[in-house]
């Protein structure tokens, strides 16, 4: 018998978030998976088409409603519950979108939730991190029970394209509250790649010493086509915006190349980068813990190294 899985798509109204393609890969690791994706949107045509093109997706459910211009957990969750009868597994990405929404669904279904699934071992056994990634725990759920889960996107590759799933419009019946209203979203406008999904990330710590000094990292990032991140210490000090924080309480990322400048390497930070393919660390302090995990380390003054690196990369 197949295991029916429903993934709740994350998107911005136009474009499917890469995290959804990663959820598909996680879902397909469940034996005998039959994967469907639910797209809640004001006009979901474009996003549903992108979801249908993901390899291994069986069906895309399109739930269009003007109120879905913003995906409020309080309104989406009851609709997912109405759809959930047919599904054993309900997955969402472990992004702020999925973390907000999925527990609300789990509670309404009276189903357990696993957060940050990083590996599928069987239809009932999964692995997830606890204690800021200091423990990796194998967890077992009762066979046949409904399960809600968020998927640690850094642990899975994005599903490939080339799929030809059917798209059908559905209208789940659910009482929707209006006690929660969207007011605004102030998005940090940037031409740089998205930190969560960028292939290259340049990141700075407290040693940058001011918001102004972060400019040298932006310049290097632009040369590399990289996103810019920051340690919690740098964000707390006001040198970088909140949404730039990399680490256990910020973003958990898995770029091909991570360049850490003036970051000492607190465990909370290392948790956020441990799936990076290559870590480069530059720090004044040769004893900094970041060097224990770095693939390439350089001890020195970042204020000399960053501009020189930028110059040399330009010359190449």
């Amino acid at each position, binding site marked *: 018998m197949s295991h029916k899985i429903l993934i709740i798509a994350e998107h*911005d109204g136009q474009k499917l978030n890469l995290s959804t393609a990663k959820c598909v890969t996680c879902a397909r690791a469940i034996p005998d998976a039959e994967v469907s994706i639910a797209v809640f949107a004001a006009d979901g045509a474009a996003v549903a088409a992108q979801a249908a093109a993901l390899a291994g997706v069986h069906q895309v459910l399109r739930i269009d409603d003007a109120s879905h211009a913003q995906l409020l*957990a*309080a309104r989406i969750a009851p609709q997912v519950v109405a759809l959930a009868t047919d599904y054993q597994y309900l997955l969402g990405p472990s992004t*702020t979108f999925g973390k*907000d929404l*999925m*527990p*609300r*669904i789990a*509670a309404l279904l*009276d189903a*357990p*939730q*696993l*957060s940050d699934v990083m590996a599928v071992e069987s239809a009932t056994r999964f692995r997830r991190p*606890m*204690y*800021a990634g*200091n*423990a*990796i*725990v*194998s967890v*077992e*759920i*009762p066979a046949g*029970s409904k399960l809600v889960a968020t998927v640690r996107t850094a642990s899975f590759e994005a599903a490939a394209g080339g799929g030809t799933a059917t798209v059908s419009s559905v209208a789940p019946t659910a009482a929707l*509250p209006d*006690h*929660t*209203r969207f*007011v605004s*979203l*102030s998005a*940090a406008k940037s031409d740089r790649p998205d930190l*969560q999904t960028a292939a290259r990330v340049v990141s700075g710590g407290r040693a940058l010493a001011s918001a102004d000094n972060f400019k040298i990292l932006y310049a290097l990032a632009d040369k*590399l086509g990289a996103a810019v991140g920051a340690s*919690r210490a740098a964000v707390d000090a006001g040198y970088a915006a*909140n*949404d730039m924080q990399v680490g*256990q309480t910020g*973003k958990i990322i898995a770029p*091909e*190349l991570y360049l850490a400048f003036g970051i000492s390497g607190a465990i909370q930070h290392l948790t956020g980068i*441990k799936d990076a393919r*290559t*870590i480069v660390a530059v720090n004044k302090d040769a004893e900094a813990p970041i*060097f*224990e*995990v*770095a693939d*390439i380390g*350089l001890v*020195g003054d970042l204020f000399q*190294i960053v501009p*020189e*690196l930028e110059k*040399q*990369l330009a010359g*190449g």
Partner: protein
Amino acid sequence: MKRIFVTIKRVVDYNVRVRVKPDGTGVVTDGVKMSINPFDEIALEEALRIREKGLADEVVVATIGPADCQQQLRTALAMGADRALHVQTDATVEPLAAAKLFLKLVEKEQPMLAILGKQAIDDDASQTGQMLAALWGRPQATFASKVELDGDKARVTREVDAGLETLEVDLPAVITTDLRLNEPRYVKLPDIMKAKKKPLETLDVASLGVDVTERVKLVKFEPPAQRQKGVMVKDVQELVDALRTRGLV
């Protein structure tokens, strides 16, 4: 009475380097410092500030766990909470069961706000607040970095991946706190003395009528895979060479 309900969890202190037990049954907690979950401290601080502005009359703090949790409840009372509720149990209580227990307390206390940490730093689940909101049938504003009360509404700024989102919610509502909502106050010695006289009520799980049987079995704990220590280069030229050799630039 305008009341704020705050939950706290006793967890291994933020500064402790957590180690997995050699037999894989859990993590080492013997002789390890235990504290209030840092996000819950932020939740309590926010509640106290709202009360100090005169927008609430009482702050009630609640926890679920073994007898030792009373230490953290006393700390919360010393920070300024007015009363404490302790649902005493030695069982491992999963987020959904915790939300069901908190719902029972919320139904009794009828708060205008419930403020919880966005996640506990032991199981890192980040579920309980959202689940409480769902079971209570009330709004949720998770990962809050700013909370403004306005009569029977609250305006909450949330830290989301795309930036900062602002929601307006009708009260009562559930808020979960992110790191930069506030900086919790330090506890002063006289307050610790005073806290000993504040009311702390102990309840048991059975009397609240909630089934806390575990559904998710924690089968095996393992330490994370270690990254291999790499190479050190001595200057930028060598760094660039190393990056080029690996095809990274």
